[in-house]
């Protein structure tokens, strides 16, 4: 797999590091990892950066993950970029909301690197 750029959106800096480590443990070659503490920060980052995948929490202050993903169609740099939600909100309603809003995958916390791998590699492989 080619090296990829990832944007990790989570209000916990510890969780952002864990997600990055899980990506590396899953065998991803990360050329760049960008981090945002909420959806608004992430939108700002996407104005100036291109990424290959976005991994996003749902419960965050300022702008939550569902609002963030709803706004992505208006961001030129986010066109076609897959979004995977990584969250404690594991209810069916949240999954449906996220997928309806455009998320390509959904990982419930707690998670393993294998679960990250199973979700993300097929998504990246199928990316146009």
């Amino acid at each position, binding site marked *: 797999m080619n090296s990829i750029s990832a944007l990790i959106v989570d*209000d*916990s*800096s*510890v*969780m952002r*590091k*864990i997600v990055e*480590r899980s990506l590396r443990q899953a065998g991803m070659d990360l050329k760049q990892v960008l981090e945002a503490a909420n959806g608004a920060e992430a939108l700002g980052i996407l104005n100036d950066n291109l990424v290959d995948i976005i991994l996003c929490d749902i*419960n965050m*202050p300022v702008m939550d993950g569902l609002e963030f993903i709803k706004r992505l169609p208006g961001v030129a740099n986010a066109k076609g970029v897959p979004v995977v939600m990584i*969250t*404690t*909100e*594991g*209810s*069916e*309603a*949240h999954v*449906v909301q996220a997928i309806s809003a455009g998320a390509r995958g959904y990982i*419930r*916390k*707690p*998670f*393993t690197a294998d679960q990250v791998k199973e979700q993300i590699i097929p998504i990246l492989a199928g990316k146009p």
Partner: protein
Amino acid sequence: MTPSTAPSAASGTPANWAPLLEQAAREVFELMLGCKLTVSTNSTQGGSEITSMVGLAGQLCGLLTIRCSRKAAALMASKMLGMEMGEADGEVFDAYGEVGNMVAGNFKNKIPGLGDGCMLSVPTVVTGSDYSLHSNAAVPAIELRLLFESLPLVIALQISE
């Protein structure tokens, strides 16, 4: 998608939720920290110097707390991040809050019909032991006394009216 009945009817009474809470905690510690929790036989164990709190609102209202020593919290952060963390490191609080968040989220997801109708607060971490919690609890708190790497850990769920 929203269930029409309160979770207690479909999922037993809160008194039956202790095993689910313990299972939720065990999964978080095994998957995210790579270690197994064991049951403590010491009912008077101490070491409650730091508390992680997550509020629940909606069909189930209450407060989940995790209490342990600062040493235990730092060890949790070290295991989550895969690097040595000191007790005063700011990321210890972040990691400890996330542990509370994941235990609360994993617990509510185990109760059929509750996940959709119960929201979690962002976690809050309190240091110090000289405080009391006062809530309008409807039933006695579910309290689990466990050991994390031989260090005492108390997980409690207070359910409000």
